[in-house]
């Protein structure tokens, strides 16, 4: 092994250690029987039991799941339209304006987005009486907006990559526009929609700052609950919660990678068959 290679491996290892050591310790200490964070008191699943008995945690988790599912779905629907406009509509009036608005939510500082949406909801309530108070609905509207932006970028990139001639062929064969979109464009960009939805779900599930601006007293999301728990001091049941969330994410990522490899293998086999001329 050359010196350069050893240096590369060593420096890359530092990065991976930085990413994983804190998480690993969190997982190990989620099984700690002791109340004290740094004192090992033997293995136990005590904190998991505690977690599932904690009604506040369960409520907050349920609120977060609902918000994330609806926001990701609304964001994906709107973002797909926006991404389609960006990649397929060529020049139109207000194009630059549209592009700016569709991508700006990504780079906007969260505190600014949160503040501006809260002021909007308050002003709307004063003028038209809707939305009355803040809660699930206002969080969903706020989250859908930034999900829209992320999905638009993903869909635009995907549509730019994909060969337009297929759509043109369908048009030549007499297909009408909405039909072409649903029968041809949408299935082709489906993987982009799935990854956009998953990204949106994660971003919404993770958001603390925007949700704390636009939520009312009744709706506390999981990050809001964790934040207040962490502020009060380290509490061991958060370790258990973190471990559970990581387990779910790891399962999802593994399943995704496995599915991708399988699809890849099938495609390669089909290509080989086609080359050989089999049916």
């Amino acid at each position, binding site marked *: 092994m050359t010196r350069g290679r050893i240096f590369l491996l060593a420096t890359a290892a530092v990065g991976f250690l930085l990413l994983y050591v804190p998480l690993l310790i969190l997982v190990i200490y989620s099984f700690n029987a002791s109340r004290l964070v740094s004192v090992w008191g033997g293995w136990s699943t005590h904190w998991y039991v505690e977690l599932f008995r904690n009604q506040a945690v369960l409520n907050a988790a349920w609120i977060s799941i609902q918000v994330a599912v609806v926001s990701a779905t609304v964001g994906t629907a709107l973002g797909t339209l926006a991404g389609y406009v960006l990649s397929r509509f060529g020049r139109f009036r207000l194009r630059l304006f549209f592009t700016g*608005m569709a991508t700006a939510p990504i780079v906007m500082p969260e505190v600014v987005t949160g503040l501006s949406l809260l002021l909007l909801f308050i002003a709307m309530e004063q003028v038209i009486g809707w939305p009355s108070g803040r809660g699930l609905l206002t969080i969903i509207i706020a989250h859908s*907006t930034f999900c829209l932006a992320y999905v638009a970028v993903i869909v635009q990139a995907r549509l730019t990559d994909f060969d337009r001639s297929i759509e043109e062929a369908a048009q030549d064969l007499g297909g009408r526009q909405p039909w072409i979109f649903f029968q041809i464009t949408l299935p082709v960009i489906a993987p982009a929609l799935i990854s956009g939805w998953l990204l949106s779900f994660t971003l919404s599930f993770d958001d603390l700052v925007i949700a704390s601006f636009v939520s009312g007293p009744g709706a506390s999301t999981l990050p809001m609950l964790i934040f207040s728990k962490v502020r009060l001091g380290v509490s061991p049941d958060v370790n258990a919660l973190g471990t559970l969330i990581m387990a779910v994410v790891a399962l999802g990522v593994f399943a995704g990678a496995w599915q991708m490899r399988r699809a890849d293998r099938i495609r390669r086999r089909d290509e080989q068959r086609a080359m050989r001329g089999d049916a």
Partner: protein
Amino acid sequence: MSETPDRSRIGKRLVIGIPMLWLLLFFLIPFAIVLKVSLSEGMIAQPPYGPILEWSEDSWLPAYVGSLFNYEWLLDDPLYITAYLNSIWMALVSTFFCLVIAYPMAYLIARSSPSTRTTLLMMVVLPFWTSSLLRIYALLGLLSPNGYINTVLMWSGLTSAPVQMLQTDFAVYLGIVFTYLPLMVLPLYATLEKLDESLLEASADLGASAVGTFWQVTLPLSGPGIAAGCLLVFIPAVGEYVIPALMGGPDQLMIGKVLYTEFFGNRDWPVASAVAIAMLAFLVIPFMMLRNSSALRGEV
């Protein structure tokens, strides 16, 4: 053509119109309201700010009563300017460390065999998909006075008292690097993976050392990835609230935290709005222009 131009034009307008309307209502108009509130005076009322237009009986047009008072306030009090500069400085330093740590990772991933590559990529993506708040919490456990690092340090006899790591600038730097590292690795990997090997071979054939090839060929060619990664880390790091709030000291100033405190702590909505507008003017607008003009398209 199978459809009448009229129908297709209506369809097209609808497809543009729906997302446009949503963004106007929930993205653009809110900023107009922030701008309006930033020009008004703070009041003890519900909501706690005054009007900027006043109707009187002797005129058809309302009189403008807003002022730049809140912006003068931002300029007069060194707290805000310090907070802006400090946020930019801390974001720059963290971005730099992120880049230094992420580059070897991305390089290693791009140069490994396809199966190792998938595993390593998954190892980068996994923390990215887990809750960032929980990851910060994990780091807190590591750094706290009675946390694992201090336990080990004291057990080994290196220190007799716990080392203060939380509530320092160091903790905030570490927190930002730890949270945003995947966002730096991914775009770097994307450009390094596309790098043409024959260029590296050519450089070696022409007598360049491995180090020379890296500085003269690899690094310049990975420019777009470096730029994209740095923007992805720098921009959110400047406005960061959670990390300085949980890991930084109480007197440590970052502009995101200042805005949050003005709004929720002092309930001074006009000043919070002015901070938001200044943040946009100084940060977001230059970066959006940069993003639209450079080779970053498609990278972010």
